[in-house]
């Protein structure tokens, strides 16, 4: 289980060398957005900000899947958990996210059958073990998670497990970048593109956004060396005014991504409009279960009504997810909104920007 090959990407000498080059090359004030929540956490955990010059501002983007899950989607999970004979099989992150008036964690305390799984295939096991129950998996995540969920649906169909269902709230990253660039007043000089998502969709998938806005884009891995190298490439592009779509994570990311994963995803899901928390509706940014697989679509098979979904007053998750504000600029941060009592999802998820600031930012 030892992960030894990572050591070189955590080598202090290499990290310091790259940080030194960044300091040397960075002349102008720049704002770089790390799109992915795992980048945000890694930047904080490794103290990367403390190695960068004052000229570089790092902004966290809409790349934490839990954080961008719309409130009505959270409310859907909660309502479904209240139905008879339902077991919700969920990833752990989702449990604490507040809906309009409850959370899965509160529902579990109230006696609803909600279980944490580590893989979608664990949810399938539950379906096999409990043929009299409906096992519902809240499908939250980007192109990284969606292929696995698609594969699980295919497997469920193969085994005729008609008590397994998914509520798809999956989202696609490139349309979100497009939407971000169209927001009035947005001020981003470059994108650090997510590593895991890029492994699946490949560099070419960002081609349309890059060509439209000509903004520096670099895909990076998650180790400190990876992130620093990605930032260095962005700084070089920005300083030399030659925007490019570049790959700083070639050991995992290719031009075309993982065609098999993409194929499975396309087989099971239709591309659809989706509501992103704090940002709103984004064209072609969601994944809905195809009609052919309606038997595994909890939204189509189960009968429930949603409460009025209003995002909590004063919560700046939307502005934080778009880099317009940082968490300490939100009136609720560290006051009414803490990891123990989160108001918005950015404070809940381990990858959430507010949770990262709360845990690691000394302010």
């Amino acid at each position, binding site marked *: *289980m*030892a*992960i*030894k090959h*990572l050591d070189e990407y*955590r*080598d*202090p000498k290499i*990290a*310091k060398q790259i*940080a030194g080059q960044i300091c040397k090359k960075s002349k102008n004030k720049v704002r770089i957005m790390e799109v992915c929540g*795992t980048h945000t956490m890694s930047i*904080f*955990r*490794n*103290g*990367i*900000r*403390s*190695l960068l010059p004052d000229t570089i501002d790092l902004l966290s983007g809409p790349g934490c*899947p*839990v954080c961008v899950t719309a409130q009505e989607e959270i409310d859907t999970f909660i309502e479904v958990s209240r139905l008879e004979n339902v077991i919700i099989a969920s*990833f*752990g*992150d*989702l*449990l*604490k996210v507040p809906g309009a008036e409850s959370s899965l964690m509160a529902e579990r305390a109230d006696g609803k059958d909600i*279980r*944490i*799984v*580590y893989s979608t295939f*664990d949810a399938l*096991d539950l379906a096999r073990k409990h043929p009299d129950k409906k096992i519902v998996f809240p499908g*939250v*995540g*980007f192109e*990284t*998670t969606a292929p696995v969920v698609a594969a699980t649906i295919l497997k469920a169909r193969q085994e005729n497990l008609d008590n397994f269902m998914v509520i798809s709230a999956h989202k696609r990253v490139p349309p979100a970048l497009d939407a971000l660039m169209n927001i009035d007043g947005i001020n981003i000089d470059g994108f650090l593109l997510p590593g*895991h998502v890029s492994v699946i969709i490949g560099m070419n998938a960002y081609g349309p956004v890059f060509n439209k806005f000509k903004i520096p884009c670099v895909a990076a891995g998650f180790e*400190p*060396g990876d992130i*620093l190298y990605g930032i260095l490439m962005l700084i070089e592009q920005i300083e030399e005014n030659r925007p490019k779509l570049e790959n700083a994570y070639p050991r995992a990311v290719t031009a075309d991504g993982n065609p098999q994963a993409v194929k499975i995803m396309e087989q099971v899901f239709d591309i659809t409009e989706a509501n992103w928390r704090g940002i709103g509706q984004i064209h072609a940014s969601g994944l809905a279960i195809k009609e052919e697989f309606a038997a595994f679509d909890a939204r189509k098979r189960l009968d429930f009504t949603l409460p009025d979904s209003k995002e909590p007053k004063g919560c700046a998750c939307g502005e934080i997810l778009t880099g317009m504000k940082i968490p300490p600029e939100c009136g609720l941060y560290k006051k009414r909104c*803490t*990891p*123990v009592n989160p108001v918005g999802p950015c404070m809940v*998820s*381990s*990858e959430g920007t507010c949770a990262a600031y*709360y*845990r*690691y*930012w*000394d302010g």
Partner: protein
Amino acid sequence: MNTDKILLDHGSGGKMSHELITRILLPNFDNPALSLLDDGAVFDINTGKLAFSTDSYVIDPIFFPGGCIGDLAVNGTVNDIAMCGAIPLYLSAGMIIEEGFSIKDLEKIVHAMAKAAKEAGVDIVTGDTKVVPKGSVDKIFINTAGVGSLPDNVNVSGHRAMPGDKILISGTIADHGMAILTQREGLSFDSEIKTDSAPLNHMVKKMLKTCPDIHVLRDPTRGGVATTLNEIAGQSKTGIRIYEDKLPVRPDVAGVCELLGFDPLYVANEGKLLAAIPSDAADMVLDTVKNDIYGKDACIIGEVTTDHPGKVFLQTRIGGTRIVDMLTGEQLPRIC
């Protein structure tokens, strides 16, 4: 006893309770104070200060690699007393058992408690068993309480960390929490990770002999090293700085943490201690700990500072600096 399951009658206080006590508990916990079977234990104790502590054990699963709820319940309270700088002497054990629980499993647990008590050199002198209807508890819950005597010259407290003190950890971190996690339903890991559950009182005694002026002793159980260091920094109103590259983590534990998105600093330990030691005695105490059977991986991981009182800072492997906060809520596996 004609059944292999615990019945409600076993907790009735009548004949079956008596049989359970005399057949399973007494032979294992054998000591003069207990065998009188009075309502309470009577024992001699030196005058002076006493340390007194209690803890309840509700762990799931009850059996896990390297241990079970029984040894955990004894070691946990022994260690809490030892962390006061005291010598643990006597323990109580209260068990709440679910109707239908396997008597064989109960015997295993009681045996493990007896073995742990023997190793720690303490007697379990009084106890209680209750049986509750199926579903009222999850298999078995155990409460232990204990007393220990405090040597005159010892003054160990979370309030006493002083700038310049060295922070010692007695071995690898996060073993217990990850051993439990890999056993939980739905996680099919093949790993060698075992709990580190162990009595630390003998180690503490030797440490205090080497340096009676050890300022702080704490065992970083739930909430892990990060939470315990924050408690010490808060109580002592000092800062603490630790170094990521000094933190001892078994490679397999680090691997599982990596996969599941857990930070080893926040994962529970059951056989490790943190100490704040005056810097001139730190190396000697470190040698003492390293010579103990439970301390061979001990090391100095940082120091107490004057800056940032109440806060813990970590120098990352790559030379960056970040704050280390307390654990807030349970660590939950991440989504991607």
